[in-house]
Every structure is written in C-alpha cells, then in structure tokens.
C-alpha cells in the first residue's frame, strides 16, 4: 500500500511540475528564450492568493482567480518591459541574463513587501480526503484537485493549440516568425499571449503547491521553478505533451527516491536521471529533431 501512496504523491507533485513546465516550454517554443523568472511568478501567485485570503477575506475561488489575474498581468508586463526590447537586437545571452535579473527583482520586491519570514499558507482546497482500502490508503483532497487540474489544463491547452486559429498561429510563430508575419499574424501579440497563458498557469501551480506544502517565502518559487525547467527539458523542451510526461516522471522519481533511497539525495538523483536521459536522447523524451534550414 505504501508504494501506491508514494506513486500517488509523486504524480501529484509531478502534476504541479507539469503545470509549471508548460509555461517554460510554451515560452521557449514560441519566443525561443528561457524565462528563468517563471518560477518566481509562482511565488507571486502564492502571495497574491494569501493576501486575498487573509487581508480581504476572500473566498478560496476568488483568491485563486485574483492570483491568476495578478500573474497574467505580471507575465505580460515582464515580457513587454524586459524581454521585448531585447528581442530583435540582443544576443540570447543578454535575454537570459535579463531573465535572471527579473527573477531576483521579483524575489526582492516580495521580500521588501512581505518580509523574509515564511508565511503559513492555508489550503484553499475544500475537497475532503479520500480513504480507500479501509483507511490503509489515504488520498488528500489537495492531491485529487491537483491531479484533476493538471489533466484539465493539459486537455484544454492541447485543444486550444491544435484546434483554434489562435493556437495554430502560435505554432506558426514558433516555427517561423517571418513567414507568420507574412500571413498577417502579429508576432508580438502572440508572444504576449504565450506569456499570459504561462503566467496564469504559474498562478494555478503556485496555489496548488502552497496548498500541499503550506509554507510560503520569497524563495518558494526557485526550486519548483528549476525542477519544472528540468521537467520541460526532460520531456523535450517546446513540446506540450513532453512537459506533462517530464513533469510527472520527475515528481514520481523525486518522491520514490525520497522514500526508498534518501531524502537528502533525492534532488541529486532527479538531476542524475536528467543527465542520463539527455545523454541518450539529447532532445528529451518527446523532443523534436532540431530542424536544419535548407
């Protein structure tokens, strides 16, 4: 029974990684940049929800919605202010360094406003725990909601990308910005939309994460951010199903390693698995072959 419960916890943690990894992978796929501030957007989402709950006495649903709006606006702003001006001229390295700068900026602004003490986050999830097998296997409400959210998000996003005009425009921009413009697609707007979606999802991930691991500090986003980035690379950066598979595998490996090997070594094991995967398949599990321009 304990193995099963570890697996379920792993899938749940992995679902959060997957939701975060989507933001990395979509932004990479379309803007061809690594948005290292993405993890910190999660943390901002957590604080936004917490503020609504404590100071505005909002209902959990309202807190989540406000958190999504705050992160979406934040994502669009970061892109417009910090990344867009660099897109045409600067080297990819300049964009990467800017992203790291934005990451520290977000951490420090939150530090200034809320202080460095970790805040106790109360779960916003009203779903009761599920007891199975006569109480031997317990699945928390947070776990259930996290896994369901991940499935819903993946399904909706996949349909959006493949079935809508806007989603196909995103694919076109991802493949060839010049040709996309010749079709009449506004590339800047499409990239802004990608940031908006990724950041809105980061808010959801932040609330889910804080509901399961209820402690929130200005650095809460860093480690899940890095793990989700690893998950995105693991699955094949740029690939949406890859982010899903990468995230879930990563969560499961992490929890199993903690349970059966060593909780200190768990992170090292996660990264070791990544290195092995990349040695065998450099583009990640579902990564596309890098296309040569003829």
């Amino acid at each position, binding site marked *: 029974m304990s193995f099963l419960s570890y697996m379920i916890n792993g899938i749940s943690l992995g679902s959060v990684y997957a939701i975060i990894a989507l933001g990395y992978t979509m932004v990479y796929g379309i803007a061809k940049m690594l948005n290292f501030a993405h993890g910190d957007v999660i943390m901002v989402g957590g604080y936004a929800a917490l503020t609504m709950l404590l100071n505005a006495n909002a209902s959990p649903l309202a807190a989540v919605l406000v958190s999504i709006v705050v992160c979406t606006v934040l994502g669009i702003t970061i892109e417009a202010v910090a990344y867009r001006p660099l897109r045409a001229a600067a080297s990819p390295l300049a964009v990467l360094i800017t992203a790291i700068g934005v990451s520290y900026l977000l951490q420090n602004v939150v530090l200034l406003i809320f202080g460095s003490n970790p805040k106790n986050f109360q779960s916003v999830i009203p779903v009761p725990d599920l007891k199975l097998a006569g109480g031997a296997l317990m699945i928390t409400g947070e776990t259930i909601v996290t896994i369901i959210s991940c499935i819903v998000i993946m399904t909706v996003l996949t349909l959006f990308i493949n079935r809508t*005009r806007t989603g196909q425009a995103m*694919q*076109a921009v991802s493949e060839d910005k010049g*040709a996309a*413009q*010749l*079709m*009449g*697609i506004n590339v800047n707007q499409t990239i802004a939309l990608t940031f908006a979606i990724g950041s809105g999802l980061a808010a959801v991930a932040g609330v889910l994460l804080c509901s399961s691991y209820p402690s929130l500090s200005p650095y809460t986003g860093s480690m899940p951010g890095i793990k989700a980035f690893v998950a995105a690379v693991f699955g094949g950066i740029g690939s949406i199903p890859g982010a899903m598979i990468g995230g879930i595998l990563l969560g499961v490996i992490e929890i199993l390693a903690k349970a059966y090997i060593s909780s200190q070594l768990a992170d090292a094991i996660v990264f070791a698995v990544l290195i092995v995967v990349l040695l065998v398949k450099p583009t990640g599990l579902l990564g596309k072959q890098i296309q040569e321009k*003829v």
Partner: protein
Amino acid sequence: MAMLEAKNLHVYYGVIQALKGISFEVNQGEVIALIGANGAGKTTTLHTLTGLLPAKQGHIIFEGKDITKVPAHKIVKMGIAHVPEGRRVFSQLSVYENLMMGAFTRKDKGEIAESLANVYKRFPRLEERKTQRAGTLSGGEQQMLAMGRALMSRPRIILMDEPSMGLSPIFVNEIFDIIKEVSESGTTVLLVEQNAKKALAIADRAYVLETGEISLEGRAEELLHNEAVQKAYLGE
C-alpha cells in the same frame, strides 16, 4: 499610376548596404520579373516591400498609400502576398492548416471556403494531401503549398521569390504555368527568378539587379535579346 512603386530604396544589414537606391514600378495586371545573380539583392527587395526589413531611405507606395513604415503583419491585409524564398511552409501544420493560415486575416467563412476550393482546383495534389503534414511534402509540392497559401489571402499582387528553385524540370514547367494562370486570373505578379529565360518568357517587363542597383530595365522580350543579359543570365 503604378500599383506598386519602390522609390530610391536603401537597405542595410548592419553596416553592409544591400540595396543602393533602387526604384521600380509594377502596374496593375503586369507580370514583372526581377532577375539577378546570387547576392544581387532580390530577396532583400521583396523583404523590404513586405516590411520584414526596414528601408533606411526611400519609399514604397502601394495603391497610392505610403506603406514604407507599415509593419509586416499588416501588409497582407492590404492586398500584398509574398511567397518567400525557400517556401517556408509551416512544416508541423497540415496542408489544410497551412492554407488556412494564408487566410488568417480574413473573416468571412463562406468566402474562405470558396478560395480554398479554388486553390484545390488549381493544385489537386494539395487536396489529395490535405491532412498530411507540410514537412512531409516534396519540394515541388511545398512550393505549390506556399503559392496556394499566398493565394488564400486573395491578394491583388503576389510577390514570388525563386519559385522554381531546386525543382525538377517537370515541376519547373508546372510552376511557370501556374504563375501564368494566376496572372491571367487578374492578379498582378512580381517574380524574382534566377531562371531568367523562363521568367522573361512570361513577364511583360523586367528589371535586372546587380549588387544592389538596377542595371537594366525594359520590356521582357527586349531583355531576352539584349546581349549583356544573354551573356550574364541566359548562358548564351
């Protein structure tokens, strides 16, 4: 008044000047050929016309409006379609989805369906392969898709950059037949080609581009019989 007019265009890549003040005009209904050797600036010219590259100096006038500063994504809606060099179809999208991207700025579903039917009629191969990913098409089929995609915007003028590049002789003939048809159906054509003989055979007038400057211009037949052109571009 010319339909499309380039006036004294200067275009740079960093400090390298690729276009050194070129001017030309395209009248409604014409087929204009722009010929020149590798690196002469043909692609640069087309990219400047559709806003993918900025002109440092000079103007582009389309149907009386100055479009020099209009951003690339607003050009197609004005009636200018561009079939880029190397085709640049969206390889991950299906043939059908590529064609629909060509109609991205259009709203009326009925009219779009009509255009799609026309494209399928002109390129039956595309209809046979409509669910196939564009990346899996042969070079000639991709060229047809790139042309079909451009026609889906219902352009008044179509700019084509070396549509015959890298194709087998049979496909080359087919592509030139189609260009003729497109022109006969009322669309103005600006054709960039290295295959000068074929381009001059279907063009009304032509411009010869040499290292960023227009060195010759005239009626296509005259250029076909021009000694300098024959030597440099027709291999005679």
